[in-house]
């Protein structure tokens, strides 16, 4: 990261009391990195479109283990975790960053450990490079460490995070999760995030997919409208492994979902798809760096944004093809629909290519609802407001259809329907 002339200490002020208490090798190293660069501002290229003023203004207290069980139960219902298709699935529920056994149902055939017990950091995250990962490393409280043995199908597991902050008492929590699918194993993982009040959810998730293993990963971000959700995800995919991910963002005042995926051996593939639907003053950022570090790998990325009110959507997607990564096949598409004259989209799809025998392309489109389509629907008797909803829904659905797993798709549809109910008969 560039040396930036600013008071790096000042950016860390909201976390200072806890940072002063940091101990341990990894944590102090991360703190050192933080002190060198501070939290990024918009002069840092990777943060050009997303500012962190939200953090500077708020003194965040550390989380407490106690939570309001009635509220938590209701929130799990709202999120579709304990209602509908979700109710049948194993779930690991974290409240304010701490594991809540009373709300959880442990999965079978899959081993689960907890960071609060093991204290072990994974090998993939880069606190030296990403300041938010450094912040997480310094302050991490708890987290799930899921591991699927070789050749085992681990089924479908929910990893749920609830944040609950009382009025006037903002908190921050920094979960440290990891998922490992061993050779030939399989797992479906859906991360669901919700909450209330003003808090910062700053998770780091390390994903390793071994040879011929497969991980289908959906993230549903439906955090409190007052919250900041700043997640960083590191994935490494081994030979012929597949990591299919999708992020759906509808919540939080400020959200960033940052993925670093590395295709580390031949014939690996990765999907880094996503959709976000924002309104009011929401700011949603979907950023990714996909590194092709081996030949014959495939990467795919489709991201769709629907932006209303004064919301701002950000898409940054870099595909890096190293010299060794011949026969790379990379495709990336970012599309945005602006519904209001005050909404904004900033997109930076980026190709950095050092191998010659590659097929890489990216595309981006920005536009409003199609007048012809609107007219067509209205001429068939559909009221304007409903016609809009139908077209918006259709636009997002084309992305959501990339969630291959039916249950995962139903979970995302539930969140969309709860937050943006469609009037009339349209499903």
């Amino acid at each position: 990261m560039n040396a930036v002339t600013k008071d790096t200490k000042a950016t860390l002020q909201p976390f200072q009391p806890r940072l002063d208490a940091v101990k341990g090798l990894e944590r102090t190293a991360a703190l050192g990195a933080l002190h060198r660069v501070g939290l990024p501002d918009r002069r840092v290229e990777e943060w050009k479109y997303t500012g962190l003023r939200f953090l500077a203004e708020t003194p965040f207290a550390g989380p407490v283990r106690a939570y309001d069980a009635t509220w938590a139960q209701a929130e799990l219902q709202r999120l579709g975790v304990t209602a509908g298709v979700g109710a049948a699935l194993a779930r690991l529920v974290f409240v304010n960053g701490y594991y809540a056994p009373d709300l959880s149902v442990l999965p079978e055939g899959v081993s689960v450990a907890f960071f609060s017990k093991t204290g072990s950091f994974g090998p993939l995250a880069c606190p030296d490079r990403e300041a938010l990962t450094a912040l997480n490393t310094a302050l991490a409280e708890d987290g799930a460490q899921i591991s699927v043995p070789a050749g085992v199908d681990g089924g479908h597991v929910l990893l749920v995070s609830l944040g609950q902050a009382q009025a006037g008492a903002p908190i921050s929590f920094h979960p440290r999760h990891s998922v490992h699918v061993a050779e030939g194993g399989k797992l479906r993982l859906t991360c669901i995030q919700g909450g209330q009040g003003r808090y910062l959810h700053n998770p780091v998730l390390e994903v390793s997919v071994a040879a011929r293993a497969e991980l289908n990963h959906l993230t549903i971000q439906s955090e409190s409208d007052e919250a900041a959700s700043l997640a960083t995800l590191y994935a490494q995919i081994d030979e012929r492994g597949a990591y299919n991910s999708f992020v759906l963002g509808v919540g939080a005042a400020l959200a960033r979902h940052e993925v670093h995926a590395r295709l580390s051996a031949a014939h690996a593939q990765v999907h880094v798809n996503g959709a976000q639907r924002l309104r009011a003053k929401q700011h949603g950022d979907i950023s990714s760096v996909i590194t092709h570090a081996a030949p014959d790998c495939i990467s795919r990325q489709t991201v769709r944004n629907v932006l209303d009110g004064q919301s701002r959507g950000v898409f940054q997607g870099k595909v890096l093809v190293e010299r060794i990564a011949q026969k790379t096949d990379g495709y990336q598409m970012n599309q945005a629909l602006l519904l209001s004259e005050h909404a904004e989209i900033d997109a930076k799809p980026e190709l950095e290519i050092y191998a010659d025998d590659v097929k890489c392309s990216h595309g981006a489109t920005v536009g409003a609802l199609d007048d012809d389509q609107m007219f067509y629907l209205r001429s068939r008797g559909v009221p304007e407001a409903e016609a809009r909803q139908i077209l918006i829904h259709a636009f997002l659905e084309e992305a959501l259809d990339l969630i291959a797993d039916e249950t995962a798709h139903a979970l995302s549809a539930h969140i969309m329907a709860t937050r943006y109910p469609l009037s009339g008969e349209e499903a």
Partner: protein
Amino acid sequence: MPAVTETREAVEKLGQSSYKWGFETDIDMDLAPKGLNEDTIRLISARKEEPEWLLEWRLAAYHAWLQMEEPKWAKVAYPPIDYQDAHYYAAPKKKPGPKSLDEVDPELLRTYEKLGIPLHEQAMLAGVEVPEGEEARMPVAVDAVFDSVSVVTTFRKTLEEAGVIFCPISEAVKDHPDLVRKYLGSVVPTGDNFYAALNSAVFTDGSFVYVPKGVRCPMELSTYFRINARNTGQFERTLIVVEDGASVSYLEGCTAPMRDENQLHAAVVELVAMEDASIKYSTVQNWYPGDENGRGGIYNFVTKRGACRGARSKISWTQVETGSAITWKYPSCILQGEGSVGEFYSVAVTNNHQQADTGTKMIHIGRNTRSTIIAKTISAGKSDSTYRGLVRVLPKASGARNFTQCDSLLIGDQCGAHTVPYIENRNMKARIEHEATTSKISEDQLFYCRQRGLSEEDAVGLIVNGFCRDVLKELPMEFAVEAQKLLQISLEGSVG
């Protein structure tokens, strides 16, 4: 696979020998002492007999420059430049400026002949044999800039009759001070960026064009830039103002001798298009790229920007960039007038150790403004080439449209090709489309051409020219032919 290997070997063989413009001309030079300070600027201003306001303008730029840092965001790497180790003024020693070709140093004319630049009006007017199916060539008026000084401008009479002003900017400062004062720095302010500030402080010459209301410039205007003297920077400044309903097509070509050390070139070009005006600006940039080991070559740090001030005005940039060790260049359009149009067509070829970071900015301010970006990047050898472009739509630009197409072609596995577009939209009634691809020349295409009897070199040349066609067809015919040859030569062996 073998076809690619051969191609790559051919690229590697390609050394400096292919730079056919690398001769040096021995001319008596008037050089300012090395270094940059207020005195240098005063000296330049004095030599050019400039009015006080321009000296003040330069000094302000110099002080702004002192406060600025060299930009670091581009994907180019080079050792630190010592800005005190260059001459900021170099001019051929020739007492009063030449009034006609007869007065020009014959050595200079020979230089331009070698470059293939037709300065002789007679020869031009006589016309050249026209191949079947091609239109008769238009005469071209040429302003030739040697190191920092304009040495000759042709066809001035014809242009004057049409009301068009085409002269060295140093003359325009004296003859048309109000125009220059009004527009100079109005598109690229003195403090715009590091290199623009430097240029504003020390520019020595360049071209000035003024096309009055309703006039279609009767011929193509052309400037040829040549860096000759050792250790000189070239800082030309071009200003083109086109009034309501008027139009002009302007061509720019550049060459330099081969030298071991790097030379700095930091030009500023400002275009102003008023209502219904149209400016077509074409560049064939062939500065010395350095040798096959990356020694020498021009550092090309250029700021080019056009303002579409009037409604329905149009600015079109077309560039073929084959030269320079480093290219840092983003010809841009500020689309202010309602319904104004910006275009950027670019071919950038890098070979050996060349580095290019080039692209454009399209700033949509007015309603119904439109922009088109077509960028073709070809990387060979150990070179790195980046397309970097910004499309920004501001809240009032309802109905704005942009289409961007960026394609990269890699030849060999030691080079890099990168695409970095920035898309910023703050208007829901805008429509932006961006497409980018990266690929190599397909074995299928090569084999198909060779089966039809084409040599591999010709086949690659044909395919590359096809790849660049959407850009090349935007060039005026004279230039298009030259550009095609240049592509051929720049990638000789590898790409025809």
